[in-house]
């Protein structure tokens, strides 16, 4: 089945999200749509899927004009979509989720049998390895995504839209998804693959269309270099290789010895972990998501409740201190989720910039917030960190992902700290923001701070780290320098020493 968009335009008030967009995807073809956050990719796909209506333009399926006013219309002409944020009910089983909205009812009773047979068949055809009776919330993210894909396929989707499907996946899961896409393609399904990750696009796409500020700025083949694609996306030259500087390391800043972290049920999440970082050095913790990285980062500023062992910052013991004391003793902490842990969405940017120093002089004066200082501080920091916003009084939630991350970085790095802990610092960010974050981290290192980088992006790990520690099931499997090959590192991340 072929799908063609002609002259699609859509505006929200004065903001033009899509401007006369023409795109075409043929039977059994993978079309990648590349663009930065806010370029208008998701708007376009929501129009195709019937969640939004275009102001003008037509959609053709196999050469015939179709009207798509709802997702049901989209499904009926064979268009399926897998959203960036899954639309699954966590406590339902796979089969229950898949039949949702298409329930098969006999005499008032729900029958799942037919659905389960179909799920099994699709799962076998594409090697999805999905159990229809599994509870969705107990499945890993990558598998949940396959459930979404099955949901589209079971209703005969011939064109599948994948909206930023790899944003939530580990490197391994990403590879598996790319394989699934290839299989789908070989069986005649057309795929529209939305992403801003260049490596993936090059690996799997047949054609690549780049969208910038609501317009298609060009269509190219996967033979284009990453630099070419990136400069098409952002509209100017970009340098994708972080300029890692030679390290001149100083004294030991962080020394962790025999750290154990337990969860609420008493299970050991981090096991006898020891590591050290010197001043002027970036140590990367590489690992597949869920191997204890998050807990390790949290434990270092005492956010975890059940911890044994020793964490020394510049020979000062951290364990047993409060979170506030740990931060003030010289740690900058950029959490994994900026929305959940890094920022208060309903607070202004200015307030977010003093979140962890609100009770310390000069922000606090006789128990009262020094508003002048707070505002001046915000003015200064949004300039220094290039936060794009209309006003420092706008709420943090109104910012784009990249700008949110800049606010968190600005707050944490502007304190006088010895150690910088960053967790997945570029997850979900566009090329421009990633460049900024990387440059900033290298600058931190050059200024003599110790940096602990926790990341599941191998490019990032290689680009920044002086040394790489691989974490697997809560243990450090080994520490190497950054000359280790990707294959070897990948094996270590999978638990092979």
């Amino acid at each position, binding site marked *: 089945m072929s799908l063609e968009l002609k002259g699609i335009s859509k505006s929200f008030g004065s903001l033009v999200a899509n401007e006369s967009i023409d795109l075409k995807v043929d039977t059994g073809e993978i079309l990648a749509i590349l663009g930065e956050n806010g370029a208008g990719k998701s708007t376009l796909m929501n129009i195709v899927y019937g969640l939004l209506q275009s102001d003008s333009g037509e959609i053709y399926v196999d050469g015939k004009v179709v009207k798509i006013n709802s997702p049901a219309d989209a499904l009926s002409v064979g268009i399926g979509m897998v959203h960036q944020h899954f639309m699954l009910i966590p406590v339902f089983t796979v089969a229950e989720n898949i039949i949702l909205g298409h329930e098969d009812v006999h005499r008032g009773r729900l029958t799942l049998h037919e659905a389960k047979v179909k799920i099994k068949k699709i799962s076998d055809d594409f090697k999805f390895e999905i159990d229809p009776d599994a509870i969705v919330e107990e499945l890993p993210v990558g598998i949940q995504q396959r459930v979404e894909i099955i949901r589209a396929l079971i209703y005969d989707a011939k064109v599948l839209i994948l909206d930023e499907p790899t944003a939530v996946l580990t490197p391994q899961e990403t590879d598996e998804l790319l394989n699934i896409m290839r299989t789908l393609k070989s069986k005649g399904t057309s795929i529209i693959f939305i992403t801003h990750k260049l490596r993936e696009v090059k690996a799997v796409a047949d054609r690549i269309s780049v969208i910038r500020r609501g317009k298609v700025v060009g269509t190219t083949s996967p033979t284009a270099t990453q630099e070419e694609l990136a400069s098409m996306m952002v509209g100017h030259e970009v340098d994708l290789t972080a300029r890692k500087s030679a390290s001149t390391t100083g004294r030991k800043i962080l020394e962790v010895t025999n750290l154990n972290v337990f969860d609420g049920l008493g299970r050991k999440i981090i096991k006898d972990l020891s590591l050290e970082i010197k001043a002027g050095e970036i140590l990367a913790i590489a690992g597949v998501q869920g191997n204890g990285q998050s807990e390790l980062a949290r434990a270092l*500023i005492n956010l975890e409740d059940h911890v044994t062992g020793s964490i020394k910052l510049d020979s000062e013991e951290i364990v047993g201190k*409060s979170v506030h004391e740990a931060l003030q003793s010289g740690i900058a902490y950029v959490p994994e989720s900026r929305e959940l842990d890094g920022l208060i969405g309903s607070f202004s940017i200015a307030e977010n910039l003093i979140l962890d120093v*609100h009770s310390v002089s000069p922000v606090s004066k006789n128990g009262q917030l020094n508003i002048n200082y707070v505002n001046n501080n915000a003015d200064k920091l949004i300039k220094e960190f290039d936060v794009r916003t209309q006003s420092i009084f706008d709420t943090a939630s109104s910012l784009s992902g990249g700008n949110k991350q800049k606010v968190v970085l600005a707050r944490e790095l502007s304190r006088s700290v010895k150690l910088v802990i960053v967790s997945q610092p570029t997850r979900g960010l566009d090329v421009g923001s990633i460049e900024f974050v990387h440059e900033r981290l290298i600058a931190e290192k050059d200024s003599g701070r110790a940096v602990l980088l926790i990341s599941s992006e191998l490019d990032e790990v290689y680009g920044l780290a002086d040394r790489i520690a691989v974490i697997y099931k809560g243990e450090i499997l080994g520490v190497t320098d950054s000359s280790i090959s990707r294959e070897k590192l990948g094996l270590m991340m999978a638990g092979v020493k």
Partner: protein
Amino acid sequence: MLRQLKKIKNVTQLPFLAFIFAFLIGGIIIALTDSEVMSNLNSPRKFLTSFLAKIGNSFLAIFQGSIYDVNLARGESFFKGFYPLSDTVVNATPLILAGLAVSLAFKSGLFNIGAQGQFIFGAIGASYIGFNFEFPSLIHIPLALTAGIICAGIYGGFVGFLKAKTGAHEVIVTIMLNYIAAFFLLWLLKTETFLRPGNINPIAPEVKESAQLPLFLGEDLRIHAGIFIALITAIFVWWLLNKSTLGFKFRAVGANANAAKTAGISTSFVTFSTMFICGALAGLGGAVHVLGTNHALGADIGGSYGFDAITVALLGRASVLGTVLAAFLFGALQTSGLNLLSVTGTPFEIVQVIQALIVLFIATPALIKFIFRVKSETAEKTITAKGWNG
């Protein structure tokens, strides 16, 4: 400055529209439940005139019953006509304080259903000092108020302690503590210390004159100095929330507890101190009520102030100014209810229906937005600020 004005407009616009709409619907209900109006159904013209007259009379009665009554001033001083307004203020005073106790908790992300119990404990503490001791007013009043604040503060703080230490949900705990406070009061009023000598009804001795809040507009009006205490407290709460570092912690935990924790704010400390302050606020309400209005601790001292406080706080969208305004509105509605009954024969129940309607419309902003076609500004804002390249 413009930003502040805009903020005030954003906060007040919807409640104001809801208020107008509720009154319109309320007026129609008053007219339609009136037997006289309904008896004119066969003649459309007569029906319409009596219908409109009824609505008009009701609104007049509400105004006269809550703000100014010419009939009371007639033959007396102009001033006397303000008797209803004075009563409105008297009713609003405890509601402001108890309402703040709920609003402040909302800001910290806590739902304080316990204002009723805290109010009662405040009244107990103030009353005990009030009738049991004899000091000069300048010492006696602050001492009695402080006793109320401390008793209720501890009562509220206990909830915060339980939540911080064990995770016990504050809604359940405060509901139960409301019962405990009510029955504790009943028991207390039967003890020798509290039972008024020579009386078998459960009522404590009247507080000494030195502890009574002064009637600053004279003996004719019931209005007392409690309103100043309430308004000064409201300003204090506003300062606490918006200017102090402690209030910053409260708001941070209320808006996103995870981010607050990550930034080093202790949520246990915030939970405890919020509930302590909330208890103290509601307790001050009880203390002011007993020292200013009732003068004696009775079994019904709490009335439904603590529960109305929840409505008041919701009505005021948990903002300080909104809570104060909502308390005055509620006070006015309560005061006018009696007048509405005596002048137009509208049952008190219908007055309560109007109260409930206002709250209902405020609680459903989407409905009011739809009816009055209010454009949502927030949606546009998020779109314009998106995107890396501006």
